[in-house]
Structure formats: structure tokens, C-alpha cells
């Protein structure tokens, strides 16, 4: 297990014309469970492959526990990585598949047959694969295959880190939850440094202690699930996380009030005069639907009932506004909305305006 440090890492696939990964420095703490969250094509997999050494970064350094490993080949970095689609050695049995990374060790790291057998047994028990241990890997279901791919990472108990590249894409929804829980348990039990790439916020938020949100090759926010929900540093984070995502409305500031299309909205603090594009962010959970005469009039376009609450898709003049409405609250005939002042975030050029201003 190791602390992984990125120093000004950047990567370009086309020799510097465009960067898939813009220069970033970041530290992954030893034993942390991280999620790397972002839309497809934002550079998550690139970053993961740089850490495992499958990709040589164009710029920057990679340190494991303070030691530069940028030039080391994958084999010598002692990293486990699980891919989006299951990769199995078809001609081997399930148990042989799990033993494969252990058997490949040479020299001082070489393991005895007995030790390999006991570690494989552990991994099999951990993933509940007892019934399949002696079967050929070919012909198993996608779920089982991906479990075995996971197992090949977990069997190496002394790895520096385990990297997951959207590993649950091919797994049935009801098993996803179960596997994610299993991963969390394994993390608690063994304390590996784990980095989990996904574009699914639920996966990221349930798996990770810390979520790293990426957009277009850059890290836009690192934080706990709570921080990402309460104080998104960037309007993208607000919109990307939450279902539905945060409402972002263009506004002007006037002392301790925000003005949206001439409607005054109370804020909990006074902002200085700021230039640039100002926006107000409020999560649908903190927009309350009320009857006429109290707030800002809106027009409801549609209502989706998701079971535990309803989502009203509304229009505030020309701006879209999502509102979460409790199940049994009747919809008013002339709907208006109120914003919870203490839940409003103000953004300047898409960046959160901090409390220090």
C-alpha cells in the first residue's frame, strides 16, 4: 500500500496539440478509497492508466510513497487494475485465473505453492466463488467473469493500489449494489488504496470516502460526498451530482440579495461587487413549491413521480428549474417557488464564490 502523488502530470495523445489530461498535482492518501467521477472522455481512464503505468505521461512525475516511479514499467509498480470489461484467461480454470498474478512472481517475491493456494482460497471465499473454482473460465456469465477479474486484483494483498476502471458496467443492477458493498468491506478489512473510475454518481458516492470530480482533463473538485452535495465548487459539479442536478440561474447581486429576472431572493450574507458572469445555484431539494402570493411565479412543464418524491420540471421565465415536491403535497394552481437562503451558492464564472470574499 502506498501514498500516490501526482506532480504536474499531464498527457497528450497527439504530441501536444490537445491535452487529454491538463497539468495536475494531486495526492492519493495511503489506504484511501477514492472515486474518480466525470463524464465520458474527461480523462479519467487516462489518469488511471498513467498511475498503473500502461500509459507514459507526456509531462510530470508520479511518486509512490515519495519514490519516483514514472519510468518503471507496469509489472514493477505492483498495481492491480480491473477493467471495464472482464478480462479472463479462457483456457484456465477460475482458480488458475486467480493464481496467475501470484505465479508470475519471480526472484525474491516468488511465492510457495501452498501460499498461492491459500491466498486463492481467500479470494474465492471473499467473492463467494466457491462453486466455480474448478470450472474453466470460458462460458461463465459476465457477472461471474467480472468478479473473477476483481478477484485477480484482490488476491494480491500487498499491492500499492487497486484501480477500478468502471468495473460494474457489465454487471446486473441488483448485483452492482452487492459487489460495491463487498468492495467497501474489503477496503475496510485490508485498507488498500483504491481508486475507482466511474461516470455514475451513485457508484462514486457510495464507494468513496473522497470523490475527485473531473471535467475536460481537469480536476474541478475533490471532496467528500457531503461537500460535493452542499458546496459544489463548480457549477458543473452541482449539475453532475444529484438527481436531478443543481439548478443554476443567472443572477445579479445587490447586497444580501440576488436578483433573478427582477425577482429578489434573500441571501444569508452580503457579497462584495463582483464582475463576470454571476450565477445562483440551488439544489432541487431546497426549492419549495408554494401557492400564489409568496414567492416567484413559475410554470410547471411536467411532473415525474419517482416513488419517494416527485420531480417537477418548471420554467422560471426562460430558465429551467427542477423542484423536488413531497409525495402528498398537492400542486398549487398558480405555482410559486421559495428558495432556502442558507442553501444558495453563488458562482462567479462558474466557480463558487467562497466565504473568504
Amino acid at each position, binding site marked *: 500500500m502506498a501514498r500516490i502523488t501526482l506532480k504536474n502530470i499531464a498527457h497528450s495523445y497527439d504530441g501536444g496539440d490537445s491535452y487529454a489530461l491538463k497539468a495536475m498535482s494531486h495526492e492519493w492518501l495511503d489506504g484511501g478509497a477514492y472515486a474518480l467521477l466525470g463524464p465520458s472522455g474527461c480523462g479519467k481512464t487516462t489518469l488511471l492508466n498513467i498511475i498503473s503505468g500502461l500509459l507514459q505521461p507526456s509531462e510530470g512525475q508520479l511518486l509512490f510513497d515519495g519514490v519516483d516511479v514514472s519510468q518503471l514499467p507496469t509489472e514493477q509498480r505492483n498495481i492491480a487494475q480491473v477493467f471495464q470489461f472482464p*478480462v479472463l484467461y*479462457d483456457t484456465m480454470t477460475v*482458480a488458475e485465473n486467480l493464481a496467475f*498474478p501470484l505465479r508470475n512472481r519471480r526472484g525474491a517475491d516468488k511465492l510457495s505453492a501452498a501460499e498461492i493456494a491459500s491466498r486463492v482460497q481467500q479470494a474465492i471465499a471473499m467473492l463467494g466463488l466457491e462453486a466455480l*473454482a*474448478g470450472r474453466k473460465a470460458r*462460458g461463465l456469465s459476465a457477472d461471474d467473469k467480472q468478479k473473477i477479474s476483481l478477484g485477480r486484483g484482490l488476491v494480491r494483498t500487498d499491492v500499492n493500489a487497486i484501480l477500478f476502471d468502471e468495473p460494474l458496467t457489465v454487471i446486473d443492477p441488483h448485483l452492482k449494489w452487492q459487489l460495491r458493498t463487498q468492495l467497501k468491506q474489503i477496503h475496510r478489512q485490508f485498507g488498500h488504496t483504491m481508486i475507482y473510475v466511474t461516470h455514475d454518481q451513485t457508484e462514486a458516492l457510495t464507494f468513496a470516502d473522497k470523490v475527485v470530480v473531473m471535467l475536460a482533463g481537469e480536476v474541478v473538485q475533490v471532496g467528500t460526498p457531503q461537500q460535493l452535495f452542499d458546496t459544489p465548487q463548480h457549477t458543473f459539479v452541482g449539475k453532475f451530482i444529484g438527481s436531478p442536478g443543481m439548478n443554476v440561474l443567472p443572477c445579479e447581486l445587490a447586497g444580501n440579495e440576488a436578483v433573478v429576472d427582477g425577482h429578489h431572493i434573500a441571501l444569508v450574507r452580503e457579497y462584495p461587487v463582483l464582475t463576470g458572469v454571476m450565477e445562483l445555484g440551488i439544489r432541487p431539494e431546497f426549492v419549495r413549491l408554494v401557492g400564489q402570493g409568496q414567492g416567484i411565479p413559475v410554470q410547471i412543464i411536467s411532473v415525474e413521480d419517482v416513488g419517494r418524491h416527485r420531480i417537477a420540471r418548471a420554467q422560471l421565465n426562460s430558465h429551467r428549474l427542477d423542484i423536488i415536491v413531497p409525495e402528498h403535497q398537492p400542486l398549487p394552481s398558480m405555482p410559486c417557488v421559495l428558495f432556502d437562503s442558507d442553501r444558495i451558492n453563488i458562482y462567479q464564472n462558474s466557480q463558487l464564490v467562497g466565504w473568504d470574499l
Partner: protein
Amino acid sequence: MKPWNNKAWLFVLPVLVLVAFSAIIPLMTVVNYSVQDSFGNNEFYWVGLEWFQEVLASERFHNSLMRNLLFSGIILLIEIPLGIAVALAMPRRGWGVSVCLVLMALPLLIPWNVVGTIWQVFARVDIGLLGHTLAAMGVDYNYTQDTLDAWITLIVMDVWHWTSLVVLLCYSGLVSIPDAYYQAARIDGASRWAVFRYIQLPKMRRVLVIAVLLRFMDSFMIYTEPFVVTGGGPGNATTFLSIDLVQMAIGQFDLGPAAAMSLVYFLIILVISWVFYTVMTQQDNESVTDGRAGGGQ
């Protein structure tokens, strides 16, 4: 109940007619010849299986058959491993791919008799580039007089002509392997050999079955090239079954024995191909039905 619709046979009819004319009728003619004797004047006499007994007992047939088996064995032992090795060495992306593919396809585009002629001239001691060079270097090489030299010439020629077929088949198997497999192997710390053994070879197995079958059948039926290069000589040293058969049928006009021999020849190819196919696909079937319990250590 749905009425039986015979109209469907009309659609199959053209193919049936075609197959009948191209395969069934000629084959039956051969069967017809193989059980009769003729003394000219289009008079035929029923002889039963006599020709078959004669062919199977003849030393001449045994010798040709052994030569054929030896030749096909050597061809497979050289071309399959060499083909795999070349396919592994070929680039997977970039401009090199099309260059390699075109170069590999070139020998396959040359007609058999032209290949024979090229090598016949190329290996001649008096004017051929290869033969003359070898002679100038003091190597005692003459494929028209020495049995071993004749065999080496034919084998090198066949390897030159047909290895690229194996290469192209293996290459198609190799490029179908997703990158993730190689990445996973690097993560697992697999050696170059392990990558070949557990990733590349299993993915190539299906195309290798085709390659082995094609190369076996073609080399077992080889006629044109040895006919052009050595004419079956020196002596009978390179007289394969096909050359023998033509000599018997056209040279000696022994239609009965020739017909019996061609049927035996055909059956041998069928049986050996079946054996190859069964052995090579056995593992496939095994792994599907394989449900044994127990660890793999």
C-alpha cells in the same frame, strides 16, 4: 396443420444441378471406372474390388503415400510455427500494417505453375541465381540429381509460397484480441511467453484449425509445383500420389487402377482432415461441458 410446401425445392434446384455436374457425376464416373476393366473399344468388364486390392497392395502406392505424408508433415512443422512467429512480429498499427499485408499476400497471388517455373529457374545450377550462387560458394547442390536437394528445393518453395497464408490467418486472430487483455497481462506481471501461451494462442486456435487443415490438404494434394520443378525425380524421389496418379491415368492409361487409387487418395485426405479437426476442436468442447469441482493448483 401447415401444408407441405414443395416450392422450396425449386430454390435449391440450381445448386443441386451445379453440385451434381461439378462433383457428384464426375465422382460417380470414377467409381464406375474403379470397378471395371477395359480393353479398348469401349468394352467394360466388371472386376469388383480387384483394382482396390491391387492399389492397396502395391509398393509403388505405398512409397508415394509415404512421400506425401513426409512432405505434408514437414510442411506443417515448418509453416505453422513460422507463420505464427511472423504474425506475432508484424506491426499492429501504423503504415507498416498495409505494407506487411501486401507483401504477405503477394506469393498467394502467383499461379502454381508460375511458382514452379520461378523456382525451377531460380534453383538451376547453370543459370539460376540461387543454384549458381550456391555452386559458386562451393556447395554441392543440384536438385535434378540429388534426392535431398530436390526435397529441400520443394520444401523451401512451398514455405515461400504458402507460409503467408498461415501468417494472414494468425494475424487476423491476433488483431481481434482487445487491448485490455495485454494491459491485464502487464498488470498481472505476465511474461512474454505467458502472454503468448494464455492470451494469443487460445485466441488464435480457431484460425489455426483452418490453417492446419488448408495446409495439410493443399500439401497432400500438391501436383503442379513438383511436376514443373522436378517432374517427380530424380528417379521417383519426389513422385507424390498426385503425380503418380496422373502417370497411371494418362501416361499408362490404366483407367481402372487410377480410378481406384484416386478414390483411396480422396478417402485418406478426408480421414486425416477429420482427425485433425476432431483433435484440434476437442478442447473447445471439453471446456464447455467441463464442470469438475476442485481447485486448479
